[in-house]
């Protein structure tokens, strides 16, 4: 599809809009994509209308390539079934994931560290938590078996930590069990650890990972965010050396699709 390249001004879009648009741009055409509830749905449904019209959209609860008219409020929603090629269940979808059929996944997390280790399980000590989160769900399964995983997160100092309280989903370096040693993903598991975090997109920036060190670096900073603000909202020292500059803002066309086609009811796009 021809992309209209007229960019909206910061006061014309919300951070959620930018997150959805930046995420959509991670999708390549013809990819088989695994999406969780919320922002990932917006991102992929937008991508299907723009840069990845032939991508396949798989929901964890058991639907393949949904083409519903109405935005699902959850991956278990009947809205996921409408127009899909196959409706099945978790056994079909997770087996395909392990078989290596999933190219890209979008996931969320509560905490992350500089190696991309993500925590969605618990804040504080596991046995005596300060707060229990919903839990892993399929996060560590999808992160380890989809070829690329993109994390969508909120940028806060308490969430971007030197070390996470609990590794729900491993990044590029993590503690290996049962041994308990800190290891690199490849040395630990070779090709049967198929993916891991490929990018992290927050309300302030887009991050990627150094192939060698496995450390997170700043790829681009969102409009109206400065490196100083970004560093203030991160618990570890950020590497700006490879920053490409400002994140490409949403175009008017992308915003129109988001608000008129993807989420006209305002389920996730609530501030407009």
């Amino acid at each position: 599809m021809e992309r209209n390249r007229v960019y909206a001004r910061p006061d014309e879009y919300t951070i959620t809009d930018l997150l959805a648009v930046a995420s959509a741009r991670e999708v390549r055409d013809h990819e088989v994509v695994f999406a969780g509830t919320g922002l990932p749905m917006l991102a992929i449904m937008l991508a299907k209308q723009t840069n990845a019209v032939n991508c396949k959209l798989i929901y964890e609860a058991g639907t393949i390539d949904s083409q519903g008219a109405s935005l699902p409020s959850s991956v278990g929603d009947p809205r996921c079934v409408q127009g899909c090629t196959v409706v099945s269940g978790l056994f079909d979808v997770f087996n395909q994931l392990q078989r290596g059929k999933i190219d890209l996944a979008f996931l969320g997390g509560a905490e992350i560290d500089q190696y991309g280790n993500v925590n969605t399980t618990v804040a504080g000590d596991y046995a005596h938590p300060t707060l229990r989160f919903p839990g892993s769900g399929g996060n560590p399964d999808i992160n380890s078996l989809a070829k690329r995983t993109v994390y969508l997160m909120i940028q806060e100092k308490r969430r971007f930590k030197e070390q996470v309280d609990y590794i729900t989903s491993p990044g590029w370096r993590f503690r290996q069990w049962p041994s308990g040693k800190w290891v690199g993903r490849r040395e630990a598991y070779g090709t049967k650890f198929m993916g891991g975090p490929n990018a992290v997109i927050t309300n302030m920036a887009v991050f990627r990972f150094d192939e060698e060190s496995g450390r997170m670096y700043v790829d681009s900073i969102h409009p109206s965010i400065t490196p100083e603000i970004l560093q203030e909202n991160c618990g570890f020292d950020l590497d700006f050396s490879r920053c490409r500059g400002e994140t490409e803002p949403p175009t008017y066309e992308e915003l129109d699709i988001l608000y008129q086609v993807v989420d006209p009811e305002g389920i996730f796009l609530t501030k407009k």
Partner: protein
Amino acid sequence: MEDKRCSLKEAVQLIDDGSMITFSGFTIWRRPMAAIYEMLRQGKKNLHLVEVNSGTHSELLIGAGAVANWESCWIGHELYGKTPYCLDRKIKTGEIIAEDYSHQHMLYRMQAGAMGIPYFPTWASRGTDILNPEYDMLGKAGLRDGRDPRIPRQKFAYSVDPFYGEGELIHVPAVKPDVCIVHAQQVGNNGTVRITGQTYSDEQAIKAAEKVIVLAEEIVPESYLRQEPDRNLVSDYLVDAIVEVPWGAHPTGVYGCYDVDGGFISEFSAASKKEDTLEAWLQEWVYGVESHEEYLDKLKLSRLTALRANSYHKYSTRTKRGMR
């Protein structure tokens, strides 16, 4: 042929205190809520929940103090409440043992139970702290000594592939629930189950369990279900009790029947934040209610009518979901 049809009360009386239980559905979809409420009214205790994934139904059971052990990967209310306040509170007071596995681990644990093998191999979730022996909570509580035959003696095992040299796999233990409680769109008068839309992990849960209780929106003739056997999930001989319970999954949603009642779940989630407000909520919606019929009347017809699914779309086109 014995009649499997019974009342909701009779069906729930088949569940013993201390039972290991699993459910149909996915997060806030197609959960057997009418049975959950009745379990609380009957004062079930010391339940051991083992679920592929959890949700509002288990926050209720946990919050009301009916659960001793919980094994799953996720619990919450999706859009309608992110924090599992009841589980959070019971973990802090030490009233519950929560054992974490990943979603795929739980699915394969249930599949192993469904196919009669004691474990299942997988590549899923290597590198996660779920595998950390320090976080084997049933083990730390001394419950892996074999005294309870339903609890595996280890949380995980590992095995190296001798066939293709692909490395070390994780073996997850089978799940062997005493009871699976299902909510289906239709059940035959002798127990054949038809589920439409996503089947989630219902096939695994039903086939793994020793006893299967099926609530359904409607009971239909077996002869009707036999006209399209490709649409049925399991045959009658795997089912022990059936109950017709229209709207029996409310406030969770049912494909082709009704949507999730987000407002209702949000109110429960908010109430569950504190013991006293939860207690008041339970008094109003569970203990203070005699039967499912009384519950429906209390909800009021207009509320349910707005949730009713459009027969083409399979979801409600009338319920307000967003800000616009």
